[in-house]
């Protein structure tokens, strides 16, 4: 009588198979976490748009003194709230860029994460063709830059 050998899958083979499936699974996970962080980033970009629009709106309300609105901020604010409208406006921006005076969570101010390289800058240029404002907003440790430019006068 002929002997029949029935061959199945060995333990090593099944383990190798499991490792390959595991690698595939890690890939899918990476993709999902990338997708969620990019949604988060787009929310942040939207926020930056709003903050710079708000700042430019203040300059539009005081076009005669537009040159006083040159502004640079890293994470801390270094403006005092007394004095002219432009100084008050810049103090206001500095606070809002860091979300100060809005929400307190468990008695702590909710603050935007900020790196020293995340600068916010307003540059005013006046020429024969009018006065324009350029707002530069850096985020993600200075890696991402966002510009908004408006002719105010």
């Amino acid at each position, binding site marked *: 009588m002929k002997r*029949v050998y029935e061959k199945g899958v060995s333990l090593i083979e099944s383990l190798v198979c499991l490792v390959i499936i595991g690698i595939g699974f890690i890939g899918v996970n990476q993709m999902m976490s990338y997708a969620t962080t990019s949604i988060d980033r787009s929310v942040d970009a939207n926020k930056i748009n709003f903050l710079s629009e708000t700042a430019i709106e203040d300059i539009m309300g005081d076009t005669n003194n537009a040159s006083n609105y040159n502004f640079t901020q890293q994470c801390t604010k270094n403006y005092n709230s007394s004095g002219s409208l432009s100084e008050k406006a810049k103090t206001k921006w500095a606070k809002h860029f860091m979300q100060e005076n*809005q929400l307190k969570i468990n008695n702590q101010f909710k603050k935007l994460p900020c790196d020293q390289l995340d600068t916010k800058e307003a540059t005013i240029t006046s020429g024969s063709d009018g006065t324009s404002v350029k707002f530069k907003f850096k985020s993600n440790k200075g890696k991402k830059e966002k510009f908004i430019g408006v002719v105010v006068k």
Partner: protein
Amino acid sequence: MKKLKGFSLIETLVAMVIGAISIAAISYSYIYFNSSYQKIMDKAKMSKAGRSSLQTISKDLRNAGYKNMNYTRSTWDRWIEKIDAHNGTKGDKLRIWYNISTQDRIEISYYLEKNTSGETYLVREVIENPVVSPMKRNCERFDTQKNCAPITIIENATDFQVFFNDKDGNRLNNVNISSTENQSKVHTAEIYITVRSPNELLKNPITFEMLNGGTAGQFTKSDRYLRETFYISVYLRNVVKL
């Protein structure tokens, strides 16, 4: 005789352990990604609701006080107003008036409303010809003013605060229709809206204190929802020309 060979007990146990570990890993990562996805999507929803309503509000604020040069129909004594702590909510009520033709003007209000469970939501109400013969918009029938209800612009709004500043950047108080003088002093308006997440996203409750440009200790909530404040400042270009 044919010899049939199956798995040994050891092999089966090893296979079961490996299977169990992989199922645990898959289910853990599913739960983790599902919750982070839910969190991000809720944050995106909050951001969308906050930003789009701020855009609508800023459009109305830019129109505030717009007076058509041929408008002669009735008195022109109201264009912007703020009422504190409207209707038992901690939020403000913002009212804006402007011309939509040489004959007509329109009144737009933003305020918080409470639902049956005490949660607040932000609404926008539009009234045509507000002084002579007020007619609300957004009704089942406009001519008979049947079942009029303002439009909800943010489902889960915790707080809505309005501040006015004069041309020197100082806060203005008592800006209402009883004082045309105070109304004409308004130079910029600041709006703060605190939006709550649609779902409970936190494991443990945390305390939120809504400052929103005001002083501390006024308004707190302690629960498992996330909250974020959205802010805009608008230059009232039509009011300053009045």
